[in-house]
C-alpha cells in the first residue's frame, strides 16, 4: 500500500472517529449520571441530521410535532406525580418547560422555514427540536423508573430506541437524505485535502471534550452532576435534585447526538435507521472506556474510526464485523482484570 492511501484512510478514520468520540462521550455522561445505557443516542443523531436536512429543503420536519406531543405527555406526568402536593410554582414551571417551550418552537419553525433560510438558523432549529425530544424522553421514559436496576433501564432504553426509530420512518420516509455542507472551504496539506466540514468535525469534537472537562471540573452544576453519579443519596442529602441532573444529562446527550448528525449528513447520506449503527460505534468506544473514562473513550473512538476505515478498504464486506469484534478482547480483558462488582443499590 502506498503512503498516500494510508494517509487518506487515516484521515477518514480520524474524522469518523471524532464523531464516534462525541457519541461515546455522551453515552458515558448519561450512564454516569443516570445509569441508563442510552441506546436511542443513534436516534438523536438521525433526528438531528434529517430534521436539519428537511429544514434545508424548506419542509417542516415531523420531529417538531413529536416534541410538542411529548411535551404534553411530560406535563401530564408532572401533574400526576405531584398530585398530592401541587403548588403554583411547580405548575408554572411545568407549563413553561413542557408546553410553552415546544409550542413556541413549533411556531418558530413554521415562521422561519423556507428554501432560503440561512444554514445557521436551520441548524439552531434542528438542535432545539432534538434537545426538546431528549429532555422529554428522560421525563417520560426514565425519570419514573430512575431508581430501578441497570437492566430495567436498559430494556426501557431499547424500547425507546425502537419507538423513535419507527417514528423516524414515519417522519423522514425510507429514502435517505443529504444536507448542504456547513462550509465549502478547503485546505490542502501535502496530498491531503481537508474540507471545511471535516475541520468543523475536529474543532467541535475537541471543543466538546474541553468544554465537558471544564464543565465537570469547574462549574457547580457540573460538580453536582458528578456528585449524583458518585452517590445518589449523598447528592439528595445536600439538596441536589437528581431528576434535574438526569434532565441535564439527557439534554447534553441529545444535543451532542444532533450535532454529530448535522456534521455527518453533508458527508454521507443518512437514512432513518443509520443512526443506530453510528451510535453503536460510539457505544463500543464507551465500553472500551469502561463507561466511566472520558479520555479513554475518546481515544478508543479514534481507534474504532481508523480500524473501520482500513477494514472498509481491505475487506469492505466485513467492516462492521471487524469493528464490532474489537469489543470482544476488551470485554474479556475487563472481566478478567476487574473484580466482580455488585450492582450499586440506592
Amino acid at each position, binding site marked *: 500500500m502506498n503512503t498516500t492511501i494510508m494517509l487518506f484512510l487515516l484521515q477518514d478514520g480520524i474524522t469518523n472517529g471524532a464523531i464516534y468520540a462525541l457519541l461515546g462521550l455522551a453515552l458515558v455522561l448519561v450512564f454516569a449520571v443516570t445509569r441508563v445505557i442510552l441506546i436511542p443516542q443513534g436516534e438523536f443523531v438521525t433526528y438531528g441530521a434529517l430534521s436539519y436536512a428537511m429544514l434545508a429543503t424548506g419542509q417542516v420536519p415531523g420531529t417538531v410535532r413529536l416534541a410538542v406531543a411529548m411535551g404534553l405527555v411530560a406535563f401530564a406526568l408532572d401533574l400526576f406525580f405531584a398530585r*398530592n*402536593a401541587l403548588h403554583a410554582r411547580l405548575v408554572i414551571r411545568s407549563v413553561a418547560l413542557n408546553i410553552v417551550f415546544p409550542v413556541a418552537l413549533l411556531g418558530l419553525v413554521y415562521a422561519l422555514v423556507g428554501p432560503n433560510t440561512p444554514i445557521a438558523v436551520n441548524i439552531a432549529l434542528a438542535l432545539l427540536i432534538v434537545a426538546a425530544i431528549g429532555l422529554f424522553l428522560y421525563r417520560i421514559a426514565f425519570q419514573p423508573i430512575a431508581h430501578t436496576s441497570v437492566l430495567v433501564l436498559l430494556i426501557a432504553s431499547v424500547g425507546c430506541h425502537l419507538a423513535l426509530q419507527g417514528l423516524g420512518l414515519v417522519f423522514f420516509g425510507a429514502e435517505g437524505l443529504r444536507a448542504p455542507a456547513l462550509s465549502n472551504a478547503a485546505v490542502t496539506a501535502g496530498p491531503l485535502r481537508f474540507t471545511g466540514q471535516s475541520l468543523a468535525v475536529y474543532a467541535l469534537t475537541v471543543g466538546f471534550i474541553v468544554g465537558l472537562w471544564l464543565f465537570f471540573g469547574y462549574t*457547580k452544576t457540573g*460538580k*453536582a452532576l*458528578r*456528585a449524583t453519579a*458518585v*452517590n445518589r*443519596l*449523598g*447528592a*439528595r*442529602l*445536600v*439538596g*441536589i*435534585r437528581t431528576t434535574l441532573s438526569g434532565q441535564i444529562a439527557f439534554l447534553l446527550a441529545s444535543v451532542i447526538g444532533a450535532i454529530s448528525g448535522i456534521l455527518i449528513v453533508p458527508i454521507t447520506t443518512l437514512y432513518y435507521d443509520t443512526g443506530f449503527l453510528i451510535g453503536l460505534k460510539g457505544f463500543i468506544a464507551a465500553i472500551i472506556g469502561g463507561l466511566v473514562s472520558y479520555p479513554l473513550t475518546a481515544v478508543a473512538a479514534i481507534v474504532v474510526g481508523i480500524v473501520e476505515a482500513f477494514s472498509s478498504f481491505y475487506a469492505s464486506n466485513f467492516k462492521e464485523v471487524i469493528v464490532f469484534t474489537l469489543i470482544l478482547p476488551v470485554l474479556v480483558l475487563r472481566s478478567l482484570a476487574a473484580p466482580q462488582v455488585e450492582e450499586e443499590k440506592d
Partner: protein
Amino acid sequence: MSALLSVTDVHIAYGKVEAVRGVSLDVAENEIVTIIGANGAGKTTLLNAIMGVLPLRGRTAFAGTDMAPLDIEDRVATGLSLVPEHRELFGTMNVEDNLELGAFRIAKATAARSLERVYTLFPRLKERRKQLAGTLSGGEQQMLAMGRALMGAPKLLMLDEPSLGLAPIIVADIFRIVGELRAAGVSVLLVEQNAQAALQIADRAYVMELGEFVLSGSAKEIAANKGVAASYLGFQLEGESAI
C-alpha cells in the same frame, strides 16, 4: 408549640414489619437531643424517615411547616440536614468539592463564609482539602460528612452514629465539636450507641427499644437511671434491665 422539629405518633414499616411504632419526639431551638438505644432499635430508621429517605405514617413538622408533602431536597432547603450513618460522601471528589456541594443551595458569598467556619471547626479538613474524600481516614470522613452538612447552614443537624468505628480520641473531638454547634445556633438530634458520650453533651434524651421510646427526660435523669446505666452505660450491675 415552639419546637423546631416535632414528630408525632410516627410509624415506619419495612414491608409488613413495623420498625418504629408510634414514636413522638421534639427538638427545640438551640437544643441538643439524643436518642440512645441498642443496635436494631430503629434509631437510624427514624432519622432517615424524618429526612424523607424512608416513608412514614404520622405527623412531622419542621419550623412550623408540615413536612409530609416535602421530598428530601425540599427538607434540605427548609434547614433540616442529615449526616447519615454511612456518611454518603462523594468519594472520587476532593474534600473542598464535597464541601462546596454541601452548599449547593446556598448563595456563593454565604457559602464562602460557611467554608471558613467549617475549616475553623475542622482544621484537619483544610489540610486535606485537595485530597479525595474516599482516601480519608474514618474520622476525617466523619468530619467531612459533618462539614458538608454544615455548609448548607442547617437549623437542625441530625447525626447518625457519628462515633461509629472511630478511635476514642477522635470520638472525643467530634463530640466536643457537636457541643460547640449550639453556640453557632444549630440544634442537634443525635443518634448514638455510645450513650455515655451522648448523654454528656445532650440536654434531653430518649431511650429507644424495639421501635418504641421506653424512656425520656433530661440527659442527667436518663444518665442517673439504673436501667439505662445497666443497659447502655456499661456499669456492672446485677440482674436484668430495669426498664
